[in-house]
């Protein structure tokens, strides 16, 4: 059975006199363990779909089954629980809380998951594990403004991982990153997909980033235009090993270890 199944999904926005039809009947089934790369021109409805899949928004019409359950029948609190436990969301703009340490940022979803009843030490341990799996264990006490873009995105990924979700949705997670950092981040996603079997749906504008996935979905005008398996999938870990290490982004701290290193240190 498909983890995610959408049928005839329609989303219409009405702004004043203008009606924007962001989704015009999208159909898609995603099986567990797939890594779906979603591409398409700007305004084609990718983010709109992602928000609906992430239970952040509701469709105007159409059906969305998550694990076979109809999401439209769920209460607000049930949707909040799904966002908390089942789905990890990674945004293009990181969306970390400012003036809040990396560790606290990563812990945040735990607070809404009965985690407040968890001992502080246990919460810290789990947050450190999550930070470790994105190679940032040594930066746990840093504030977002003390981290590079790539590091911030890795903190955001750690946050998405903290409640061990079965699905990760990422809306242009590499949109603000340079090529090298993008490959690093894609390496993390690939590893989570392969080693932990997490289902990933990832939006990207770049076709080469899409090739890290197992399946390519192309949007056009609110509909899926192309939906195909990726034949020769790229391997971020290998590519990184071949690339020269980047300049450390915080000169005084030798802490930013090259990704090949931390890729080995999976918890």
């Amino acid at each position: 059975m498909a983890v995610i199944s959408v049928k005839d999904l329609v989303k219409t926005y009405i702004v004043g006199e203008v009606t924007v039809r962001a989704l015009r009947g999208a159909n898609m089934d995603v099986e567990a363990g797939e890594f779906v790369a979603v591409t398409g021109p700007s305004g084609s409805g990718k983010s709109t779909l992602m928000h609906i899949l992430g239970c952040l928004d509701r469709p105007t019409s159409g059906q969305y089954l998550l694990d076979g359950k109809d999401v439209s029948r769920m209460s607000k609190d049930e949707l909040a629980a799904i966002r908390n436990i089942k789905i990890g969301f990674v945004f293009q703009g990181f969306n970390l809380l400012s003036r809040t340490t990396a560790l606290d940022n990563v812990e945040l979803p735990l607070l809404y998951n009965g985690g407040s009843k968890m001992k502080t030490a246990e919460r810290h341990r789990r947050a450190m594990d999550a930070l470790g799996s994105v190679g940032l264990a040594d930066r746990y006490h840093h504030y977002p403004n003390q981290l590079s873009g790539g590091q911030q995105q890795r903190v955001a990924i750690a946050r998405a991982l903290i409640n061990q979700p079965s699905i990760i949705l990422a809306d242009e997670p590499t949109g603000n990153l340079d090529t090298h950092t993008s490959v690093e981040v894609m390496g993390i996603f690939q590893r989570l997909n392969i080693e932990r079997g997490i289902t990933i749906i990832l939006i990207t504008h770049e076709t080469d980033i899409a090739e890290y996935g197992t399946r390519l979905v192309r949007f056009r005008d609110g509909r899926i235009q192309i939906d195909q398996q990726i034949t020769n999938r790229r391997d971020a870990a290998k590519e990184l090993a071949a690339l020269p290490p980047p300049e450390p982004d915080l000169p005084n701290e030798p802490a930013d270890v090259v990704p090949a290193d931390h890729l080995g240190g999976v918890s």
Partner: protein
Amino acid sequence: MSILMTFRIALKALNRNKMRTVLTMLGMIIGVGAVITMVALGRGAQATIEDQVKSAGTNLINVNAGNFQAAGVRQGQGMATTLTADDAAALRDVPGVQYVAAGVNSRGQVIAGNQNWSTRIEGTDVDFPDIRVWPVRYGMFFTQQDVNSAAKVAVLGSVVADTLFGPDVDPTGQIMRIRNQPFKVIGVMTSKGQGSFGQDQDDTIFTPYTTVQKKLQGIQHINNISVSSVTANTAPVAAAVGEVLRARHKLGPGDPDDFMVRTQEEIASVRTETTRTMTTLLAAIAGVSLLVGGIGIMNIMLVSVTERTREIGLRLAIGARGKDVLLQFLVEAIVISLFGGLLGIGLGFGLSAAVENFFQWPTSIPPNAIGMAFGFAAATGVFFGFYPARKAAGLDPIEALRYE
């Protein structure tokens, strides 16, 4: 999310914007502080009145000539000539009456040696020290003999004695002049302090009422009669006194009294009532500043919700429920108001102490005022925090995340 965790998050959020938090609290601090100070002042005044009532004498009933409450007999107090020494004597036979003293009041210049002083001259009777529970310090009070003979003897209040003869000097036996007539000082009263109308009771000279009538003023009537009843139940005695006087004055059933009988409690209760009204008024005015403080909290919380829209969106996106966000902002408002309230109580104590020290006004902070101020602060937090908090909780996650 547990309430403890919510508190911790609220503290963190408030800590991130210390200056704003402190300024918001200031409204609360001033409001609560003002309410506490006002209540303390009012209560202090009330306590003073109660003390004065006690010091005025127990079971006291005052009879004054004239009746400014009755139409037609509208004469100024002290001007009326409706009471006589015989009226006073007749009251001794009223059941329940213990002591009676006729009174005639005057003012005048008094001289001793080269000291000169203008003071009250209170003509009274031998029962006076018993009625007022007021002992003599030096010498003795005058006797029935002195009253009968209208003797020129004077018992001094402590202020007068201090002024004319110096403090801690026993002036008995000395001669002084009252309105240029020689009087013999036979005693000095102990110090009593302020009377129930705020006058200094010690700034007085006591002489037999007959002396004031005959030697100083040349009148036949008296101004008032002080009566004390045997028991604390003064009301029936006061009524009986009224009946006797009406009969003696031959007043018909429809005629108004040409005198006024008031018990000490009645006099006190009017003043206590006035003070209570003042206290309520002052506290209400101070309460307005508390209200303004509350609106300040709401204002800042609304700004804060707007400013933190993206944060709220993010929290919702990672699984916070509406009520988690509601609680978070509500608790922030409550923390501000409770902390402000606490500091306000401290400020109230400080201000009250300062007022007491600098102006010599007695203050007293009733324990329930502290509880009330605190409860009111918390209620303000909940009341004014709820709207912004609900606004935050009702945000749409996507729109909140997109908010610029």
